[in-house]
């Protein structure tokens, strides 16, 4: 299925969860916060949050800033 990930088109296996996506991207063990369709999904819900075609996913982390 096709989703949008951080503003770019992204192909993810059907029935993936948010946790699957993070694992496939190598982010499972890193601090990463996720939004699906502009709503935050807490880490505790990553494994149960199933993604669907057209979902807009944002994955963010902390960077230097003032």
């Amino acid at each position: 299925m096709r989703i949008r990930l951080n503003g770019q088109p992204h192909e993810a296996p059907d029935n993936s969860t948010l946790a699957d996506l993070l694992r496939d991207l190598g982010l499972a063990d890193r601090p990463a916060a996720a939004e699906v369709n502009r709503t935050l999904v807490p880490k505790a819900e990553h494994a149960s949050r199933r993604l669907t075609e057209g979902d807009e996913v944002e994955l963010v982390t902390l960077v230097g800033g003032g």
Partner: protein
Amino acid sequence: MTNHPTTTRDTDLGSARSVPPPPPSYPEPGLHSLTIAGRTVRSRLFVGTGKYPDFPTMQAALDASGCDVVTVAVRRERLYNDRGQSLLDFIDLDRYLILPNTAGCFTAEDAVRVARLGRELLEQLANPGAGWVKLEVLGDRKTLLPDPVGTLEATRELVKDGFQVLCYTSDDPISAERIKSAGAASVMPAGSPIGSGQGVLNPSNIVLCLELLKQGDPDYPVIVDAGVGAASDTAIAMELGADGVLLNTAIAHAKDPVTMAHAMRKATEAGRQSYLAGRIPKKRYATASSPLEGAISYIPGE
């Protein structure tokens, strides 16, 4: 020079002569900790983590600044490029409270989203900064001046959501007062535009902000955020009575960031002490420090 046989005793005396004795240590009055958003911090200097030449320099500068709170930004993961070093590998999470900002947000809605993402990240890191946010809602790309309406909307929304909002704003006293009324844990008026290095452009407005915000609430924390270019600017902000100073570029872009961080630490303390000690009033004419009485010289007009 005569060659003396070296004994342990001579060596000790020799080194004692060549190295000056350490300066006497004075008890430092007035450098009390600051309570903000229900937490006590030792240092009144808040330092950003952006724009350093490299992470080790940032790490050394943060250490030299003596700060307890550091700001960070929330950004998309780089998914396809080489990720390289991560900021978090260079920040001691047990030492610093991490204050995530909403920099780059131009609407209240985006700022609220970013604040929530920041809280989620800090909860994952189990850092006490979880639930704190340095709120910025910007109104214009070129000046990065705050949007007063969006700032107020986002403050209300985030306070409702349980956040401790440390709010970047202009130096307009009425905006500052409105933000406090909306429930912000701290109002942070800008000295001058972000990264501009112009220092405190309108000291009179900062003083009015302080007066309004602290009326009947003297412990309400007010932090001058943005615009600092050199240590003297930090000292001026503190001397006006600000409870703290938040800066980034002045250290990160200094020729020598670590030395500037030392200067900023001392300027924060010097400015605080100067404020507490109380400046003398400004006068048009001179007042002699040495008595004229008893002078043997000719004094015009006497």
